[in-house]
């Protein structure tokens, strides 16, 4: 196979596996925004915190899966504390919530910097996926097994969220609440509790994706901005509150970034935002979003 073609296949594979990570990060973000109308500006910081929880837990126990679980659970608990302690008191006040979550993000990131320093940490992948897989048509004929495994993880997260949304009672509440919160409460549903569940779930997903990201890429404290921004772009492109939209948005942005980075590195970030601006111009509710 020609070098051009193997380059292209490798770049696309990088894009798709990066999209898997973006999807897991953005899935929590889109659920929180879709239902609570809260733009959780601490979402990227929750990713960072989850990553460091993963770093420490894996360093102590040597178990990658335990790190993943701890990233989900601890950041989810933090999400519950943030929601009950702060955000629930300013329900419906978007600007205050945005400012408060920015403050939380700064605190999380600075505490991470104080404790872990500015050096990059890399979490060793689980033994099963530590090596490379032979794929004849990529550069060098080998590809990281963990990055391929991220596709499985993203599919599992998608399936789990789909089942929660479509096959459970709380899932019905979440979908109905995204459509019309007031009407849902007038039907006897305690919307505040549904909000808390979704916020905890979204925070947990951010924490969990931090562990995955720190394994595939690496983690430094200042990465929160990038993942917050990516989540925003993914969700804007895909459509707020839509799971399928987050998946499609992640795929488009992941591929665009990797293809841009390889073929036109100067314009890589530019391409991402051109896509976002284009979607906003033609379909402001996002590709799979419902008109507001």
């Amino acid at each position: 196979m020609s070098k051009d073609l193997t380059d292209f296949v490798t770049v696309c594979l990088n894009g798709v596996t990066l999209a898997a990570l973006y999807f897991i990060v953005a899935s929590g973000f889109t659920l929180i925004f879709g239902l609570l109308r809260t733009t959780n500006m601490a979402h990227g910081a929750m990713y960072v915190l989850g990553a460091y929880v993963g770093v420490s837990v894996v360093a102590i126990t040597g178990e990658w899966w335990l790190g993943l679980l701890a990233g989900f659970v601890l950041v989810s608990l933090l999400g519950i504390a943030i929601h009950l302690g702060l955000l629930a008191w300013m329900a419906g006040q978007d600007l205050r919530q945005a400012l408060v979550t920015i403050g939380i993000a700064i605190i999380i990131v600075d505490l991470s910097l104080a404790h872990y320093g500015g050096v990059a940490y890399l979490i060793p992948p689980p033994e099963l996926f530590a090596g490379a897989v032979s794929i004849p048509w990529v550069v060098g004929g080998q590809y990281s097994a963990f990055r391929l495994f991220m596709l499985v993880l993203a599919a599992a997260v998608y399936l789990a969220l789909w089942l929660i949304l479509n096959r459970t009672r709380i899932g019905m509440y979440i979908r109905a609440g995204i459509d019309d919160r007031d009407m849902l409460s007038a039907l006897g549903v305690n919307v505040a509790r549904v909000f808390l569940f979704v916020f905890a779930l979204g925070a947990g997903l951010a924490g969990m994706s931090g562990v995955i990201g720190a394994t595939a890429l690496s983690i430094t404290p200042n990465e929160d901005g990038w993942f917050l921004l990516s989540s925003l772009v993914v969700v804007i492109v895909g459509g707020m509150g839509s799971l399928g939209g987050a998946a499609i948005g992640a795929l488009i942005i992941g591929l665009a970034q990797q293809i841009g980075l390889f073929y036109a590195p100067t314009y890589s970030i530019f391409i991402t935002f051109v896509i976002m601006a284009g979607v906003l111009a033609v379909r402001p509710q996002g590709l799979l979003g419902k008109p507001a």
Partner: protein
Amino acid sequence: MAEPLLQIADLNVRYGQSHVLQGVNLEVGAEPLSLVGRNGMGKTTLCNAITGLVNATGSVKLAGRELVGLRPHEIARLGIGYVPQGRRVFASLSVEEHLRMVARRDTTGWTIGKVYELFPPLAARKKNGATQLSGGEQQMLAIARALLLNPHLLVMDEPSEGLAPIVVEHLIDVLRNVAKEGVGLLLVEQNLGVATAVADRVAIMVTGIIAVETTSSELLADEAAQRRFLGVSSAHTEAAPASA
């Protein structure tokens, strides 16, 4: 003496500078009550205040229990079913999901099976998305999901709005049947024909207060009052409302 089903006393709602409800006093008993009035008089705000969706001061008592200050879901669970203006069905949910979402496990009172008996078209379309239904079917769905709360009182805001005349006829039958089942009814209507066909008692709202309480037959006979409070005559309202 037994408490009235719903007793509203000196109820006030302000949106910023505008004083929308200016001391509403109203009682709803076992018999249905229709509330009529022109646009912008505060009818929908009254519904939202009863159901807890807007903040109000004053008193709303359901069988003696104070509702002002409670959250919407608490009010709903105490027994007020809300059928809002524009129906507000959930676009992401199927017909069946709307009903399962509200239905409780106990089989006393309204069940999903029973509302399907009342509204056969819903049973035929249970897998459909709610927004695929016709306007009349969406209205049935909005009533059905409210009934599954086993409410003591249904608060309905303009259920006939945007429905074809033949569907409105059916709606009147449905509302009479619901009332016969022992559910209290506060019916807000622009359509005087519907309002007077369903309830014998009619209250008229003017700029945030209940101006007149009368009976259907008296209101239908009094064209001067109709013009004054509603800006219409009954000959006008009997005419078909536009179909959506």
